[in-house]
């Protein structure tokens, strides 16, 4: 890939540039200010996140990417209110958030559907928690299930569904509460490549048609570039924001763009940030002690 003549990832065509200018005029949905997180372990304190600052605009799609151990899961758990920051604030529509709440929907990698509830009842759960009556909840739940294309499965139990279908239910369940922001923690990480590609286009379809901001964590570079308006790149030890990349690939996205010059340029930039060149040299420290163990008279002398 490095041999290809690619434009800079910072180059944006007029259409894209115009879109980003308009986007930045939108109201801010989520704002993270000077966020720090330290974990106390028996070996001493470990800084998981250090001085994180960023904001997302209304109806923006932001991907968070970074090497393992960069604290991306910790970040999204803090945003969801499942963990408390050591210092700093998370603001939703200008108000400080405190603890988990239905204004921030969350989709987990492990589906986390309630196994004892049918698809319909799973989606109704959040609606009933916010005090809506059974009839209204049911009506709305069925609409959301229809939206993710699972009407025929509304009375099935989660164990009867495939991974992709489970995750669609989880998305419908989170969206039914009409959250201000949808937090997604590597939601497609456990799916096979084909299902994952399908889920990515479903998600884009949903995002286009619903008033929701999405913050999406992934370790898959293609996924990040394909889905995001902007990509937040984190660095490990301690977890810090390394760069916020405005993806120059025009919207609406389609799988044809996966080989476009803008796409490849952005992906190369992410590659550089996440696997810096010195890392490639570093591979030699961790090598296999391989010797030839094939008999000299083997029928296949060499695999090449």
């Amino acid at each position, binding site marked *: 890939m490095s041999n290809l003549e690619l434009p800079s990832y910072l180059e944006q065509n007029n259409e894209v540039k115009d879109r980003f200018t308009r986007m930045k005029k939108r109201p801010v949905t989520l704002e993270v200010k000077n966020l720090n997180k330290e974990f106390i372990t028996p070996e001493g304190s470990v800084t998981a996140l250090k001085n994180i600052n960023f904001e997302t605009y209304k109806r923006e799609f932001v991907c968070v990417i970074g090497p393992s151990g960069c604290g991306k899961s910790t970040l999204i758990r803090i945003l969801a*209110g*499942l963990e408390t920051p050591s210092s700093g604030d998370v603001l939703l529509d200008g108000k400080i958030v405190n603890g*988990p*709440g239905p204004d921030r929907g*969350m989709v*987990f990698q492990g589906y986390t559907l309630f196994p*004892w509830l049918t698809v319909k009842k799973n989606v109704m759960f*959040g609606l009933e928690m916010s005090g809506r009556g059974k009839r209204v909840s049911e009506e709305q739940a069925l609409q959301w299930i229809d939206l993710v294309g699972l009407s025929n499965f509304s009375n099935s*139990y989660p*164990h009867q569904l495939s991974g992709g279908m489970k995750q669609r239910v989880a998305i419908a369940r989170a969206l039914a509460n009409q959250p201000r922001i949808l937090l997604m923690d590597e939601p497609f990480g456990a799916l096979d490549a084909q299902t994952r590609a399908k889920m990515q286009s479903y998600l884009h379809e949903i995002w286009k048609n619903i008033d929701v901001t999405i913050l999406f964590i992934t370790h898959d570079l293609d996924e990040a570039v394909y889905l995001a308006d902007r990509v937040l790149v984190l660095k490990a030890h301690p977890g810090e924001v390394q760069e916020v990349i405005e993806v120059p690939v025009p919207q609406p996205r389609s799988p044809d763009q996966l080989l476009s010059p803008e796409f490849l340029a952005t992906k190369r930039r992410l590659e550089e940030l996440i696997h810096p060149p010195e890392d490639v040299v570093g591979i030699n420290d961790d090598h296999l002690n391989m010797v030839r163990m094939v008999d000299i008279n083997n029928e296949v002398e060499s695999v090449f």
Partner: protein
Amino acid sequence: MFSQLFSVHSRLDSKQRFFVSILSFIIPIIVWCVVSYAPFVWHPKVEITSPADVSYFKQGTLIDREMFDKEVEGAIQNNQAIPQGNPANPVYLPAPHEVATALYTAFTTEPRRRSEKWLHESLWDSIQVIFWGFILSSLVAVPLGILAGTYDVFSKLFEPFIEFFRYLPAPAFGALAVAILGIHEAPKIAIIFIGTFFQQVLVVSNTTRKLDPSLLEAAMTLGAKRLSLLFRVVVPGIVTHLYKDMRILLGWAWTYLIVAELIGTSSGITWFITQQARYKNFDNVYAAIIIIGVIGLTTDIVLSILGKKIFPWEKSMAKV
């Protein structure tokens, strides 16, 4: 065919499974029959059919084979009449048909004394004692266990004392229970309660702790708060495991029945067993043991079928 039967971790088809399950009962019964009916297997005694001149032989008594052989030898040497006998098993191992007859007659013969109860009446008494002991214990232990498994406060508040108390043997409270609760059913129920309760709290709290925490997190991001977390997530999340625990614990309750029925006014099926053993009516003893086994197995099968009906989402249950 054979290699397929013994391949690791693979399930047999339903026909094979049924056949093998039946075998698990057939095999012990066959072993019992062989030991009882094949005269050359074991049979360490001789049942005297004709005592001849041996003074201490009586028709129908069981004599060790060695003794019998010695007497026969003696009789031959002294030219006396030779005692006759058939190989027999000791009195504590009755043959299957004897137990079967005992099983039948136990239900059809009137008790010898008017104060004694019919077998089915004793049985019903026992079932009631078990039922009330177990229900009362569950009513208290299940909520406490769920609280202890959900909130660390309750865990630390209940569990240390319960850990201490569960080492105290329930039978030791027999006399105390009679002193406090009188001599009839109440102290028996109390013994079952004490025997079950403390284990139950610990088992339930342990089961509750195994609930996938990410389900609670998901529920919180959907807006669930304290009480709804407990009743809409924790309780339904563990209920199938709880149900399995209860099936196992019910078995434990039966083991305390023996002690429970010996205190106060002795009664019930285990009292029947003790009594019959004293009279050396071992056929009746085996009959009663089989009845208990059958009751236990039937309840367990009924509960397992019921479980599938109540919890349609439980995959592992649906498969069995």
